[in-house]
């Protein structure tokens, strides 16, 4: 085959990958497993992960979670601060478990980048799957983080007050101080009651 003859296709390389993807869809299980192994991944493990992903997405859609990126704060929430305190809560929960970001990423099956965004970017709205994974890892009630982050909007003035009180706490590093531990325990209790 003369490669020059296919120069036009080289200009449109996504089509080559798309063709491969379509062949994967038509392939049998053994061939698909071989493709997955070629990426140094375990087919069964990936299939299990995919099942969990589907469960999380279906659960999130059942809970009528607002899609990522289309959030607008309710009238009683201060504009521009939809997730005030959420990053801090995540950071304190992580520190409570004595975990580095990379360790939490592995254990909770969330990308390092997203944890950075949650902890460090005010206004970042986490994905429903991420919230689901975090709730599971930190053993928090279902949807509690979704409500807290603003992904699920619940018009609850008491909750808002708690949220802003939490947001105002210190932003420390390393192990939690006694005050931080108390505040965190109190807030986690509040989240449980909320759900």
């Amino acid at each position, binding site marked *: 085959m003369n490669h020059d003859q296919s120069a036009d296709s080289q200009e449109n390389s996504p089509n080559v990958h798309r063709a491969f993807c379509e062949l994967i869809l038509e392939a049998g299980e053994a061939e698909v497993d071989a493709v997955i192994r070629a990426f140094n991944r375990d087919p069964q493990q990936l299939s299990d992960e995919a099942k969990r992903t589907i469960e999380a997405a279906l659960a999130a859609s059942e809970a009528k979670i607002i899609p990522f990126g289309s959030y607008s704060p309710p009238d009683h929430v201060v504009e521009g601060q939809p997730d005030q305190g959420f990053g801090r809560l995540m950071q304190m929960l992580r520190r409570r478990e004595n975990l580095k970001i990379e360790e939490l990423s592995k254990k909770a099956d969330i*990308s390092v*980048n997203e944890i950075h965004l949650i902890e460090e970017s005010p206004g970042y709205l986490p994905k429903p799957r991420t919230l689901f994974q975090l709730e599971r890892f930190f053993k928090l009630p279902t949807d509690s983080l979704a409500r807290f982050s603003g992904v699920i909007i619940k018009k609850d003035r008491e909750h808002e007050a708690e949220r802003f009180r939490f947001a105002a706490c210190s932003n420390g590093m390393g192990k939690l101080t006694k005050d931080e531990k108390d505040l965190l325990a109190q807030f986690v209790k509040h989240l449980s009651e909320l759900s």
Partner: protein
Amino acid sequence: MNPVCTPHTQESPTYASLSEARSAIHALSGVELKKLEAIALVCCRAFRIPPGRMEPRELFHEAVERTLDGRKQWRRGVGILLHLGRAMENIAGHEVPKMQRRVEAGQVSDDENGESVDDPLDKLRDLRNHNRDMDLRAAAKEDVKAIYALFDDDPEAFAVFKHRADGHEKKDIQSLLKLSDTVYATLSKRILRKITSYHESRSIGR
């Protein structure tokens, strides 16, 4: 096999309802999930999404989520697997790079409204993004060249693959190249094996 992999055509002329999409996704089998995960792996590598930016499982989740909430509408007559596969390709190819650029540049909303920010740093970022786009394009061309080279000694398989890349469907290719089901299946397996081995060689040492 997924019993509701293709939506019924009577209820709505163009797109399946959200509940139809929900049922189809709920009914995906283990093998079908593996296929989708394999496609997520291919998409992340093909579009060179850096590790830690968006993992294949997140790409898959994003495609499922957008289908469930209606942002990616499931067109009637298209199988759910093909729909989700194309959704992942679309997200990886178009939306993730944009999202990354916004996050890296610290821009969240201004760009979306089309308002330009007159800042020398933005120009520098634009230049950097442009350079990265050029690098990606060059790398993609290298990819295609390497994949095509796999078919140097196999013109029959290449013909099928080339038609596939040009957007032809299985039945059209069979008709164009006068291939029986058996021959087409054999050639498809050969193509899969070749490209799989290419990805395997790229995974070594990763």
